[in-house]
């Protein structure tokens, strides 16, 4: 009973973080700040989700699998975020070199003066 | 009694129509490939749902095996399609077929079809 209540509270809170991360993706102006919102919020959201589900795990094996899912997803998310950020940064620099007028004003302010 | 099979069978039928619409109306070749894949997974879903209609017991394994075969072949076909699209774009410089570019929106389009120096 207590376990069920904890699961509901934790997964519910996790969902809120996912919601915030998604809102960030839609609302934030440029790639880097979108990434920031997404990775931070989603990693916390996933952690809470896994923690909540852990209270429903029937045995240690399931618990271990949940932990593995969490760890692998964290590593994958962190790596992807780095790669996307680097790619966005480099293409930003390239487009700054190519033309003075950037398409996205937010990107040019983030980059600083070219 | 509405089961999962009913819902996803109808979903598959809808996906076939959706993919067909995209396949006909999209001009970009890679988008056609996407639409082709949507049609494919719609067919798989419809087929798999017919195998899962019995509410009791396990799903019929024969359609499952055929669908697994189908998914793998669909990837192979998509990879070949992507290769063909890239080769076509390399030669023509365009990602849509000339007859599409010419017939839609009325009248031929002044577009360059000469090959880049290879």
């Amino acid at each position: 009973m207590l376990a069920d209540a904890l699961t509901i509270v934790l997964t519910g809170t996790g969902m809120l973080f996912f919601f915030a991360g998604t809102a960030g993706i839609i609302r934030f102006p440029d790639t880097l700040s979108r990434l920031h919102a997404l990775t931070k919020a989603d990693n916390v959201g996933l952690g809470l989700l896994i923690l909540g589900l852990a209270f429903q795990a029937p045995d240690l094996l399931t618990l271990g699998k949940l932990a593995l899912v969490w760890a692998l997803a964290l590593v994958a998310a962190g790596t992807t975020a780095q790669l996307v950020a680097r790619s966005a940064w480099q293409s930003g620099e390239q487009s700054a070199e190519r033309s003075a007028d950037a398409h996205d004003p937010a990107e040019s302010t983030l980059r600083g003066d070219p | 009694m509405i089961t999962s099979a009913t819902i996803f069978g109808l979903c598959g039928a809808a996906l076939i129509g959706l993919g067909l619409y995209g396949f006909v109306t999209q001009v970009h070749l890679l988008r056609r490939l996407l639409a082709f894949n949507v049609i494919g997974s719609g067919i798989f879903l419809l087929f798999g749902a017919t195998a899962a209609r019995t509410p009791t017991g396990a799903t019929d394994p024969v359609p499952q095996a055929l669908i697994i075969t189908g998914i793998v072949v669909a990837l192979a076909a998509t990879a070949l399609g992507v290769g063909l699209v890239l080769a076509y774009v390399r030669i023509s410089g365009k990602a849509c077929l000339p007859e599409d570019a010419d017939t839609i929106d009325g009248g031929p389009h002044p577009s360059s079809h000469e090959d880049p120096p290879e």
Partner: protein
Amino acid sequence: MTGISALGFDLILAALILGAGLFAITVRDLFGAVVFFIVYGVFVAIAWLRLGAIDVALTEAALGAGLTGVLLIGAVARLSRVTTPAGNNTSDEMRRPPAGARLASMVVAGSISGVLGWAFLSLPDSTGLRDAVADNLAVSGSANPVTAVLINFRGWDTLLESVVLLAALVGLWSLARDRDWGRRAGLRQHARPGGVMATFGRLLPPFGLLLGVYLVWAGSSYPGGAFQGGTVLAAVWLLIMMAGLMPVPRMVSVGLRAVLVAGPLVFLGIGIAGAMAGTFLGLPPTYAKPLILTIEAALTLSIAATLALLVLGTPDPSP
């Protein structure tokens, strides 16, 4: 999940599938369309889970959402390099047929969906071949009915499929230009040594290898098998190559070609041995299990190599 909550879940999932599919087809940005298509694949994999088809769900998640995603993102990247450098849509390619034609296609496509849905709903209930498979499962050499069908009962289909995969790769490679022939397949990889990608490429493969081999091994009794395991191994190989830890093989490499044909050859050899004993592709019940594992092991290697090379594509045209 039972009753009303299961119904609600299925309805929401079906709506998400249709929504993602719709965006994959209609979104203006090509890259966005590809991303929606990948999301669509993940949703479809969950739908397979809800239909009780775990083997199909694994295949769809690994192939439909995973490898297809890598393939299509690579295609968008290569397209944008060949055509306009900045965007991926020229005005020509975004042009649509006139509204009348679009409406007509919508009506035709909608009626086809309607007819298919009606046909689906009016089908009589049937258990299909489920009981026939269950009755013969004991002599098939596999406790997983799907593996039994794939390798034993319908071995023909699977043998021909492995040849189709090979044919697709031959077709793809034949699109390479003469002067690119013999070079390394696919895009040039440019991960920095010691960078994030290289670390990731060192961290993940042990887990991937374990999972891939486990899926093949478990496939004889639980969900899993050569296709699911092979796809995971293909993904591991792709990751290692993208991280720059292993060179992409040359298309003319003899060893590579041996791996590509190993699966179909072993399958065919066992099939011919069966023909001498009575039935082509017939597996005698006493040896069925080791034979299935042999075929699956060889097929897994070939499938992994073929899928990875299909995703890599033809060599990057030299600048």
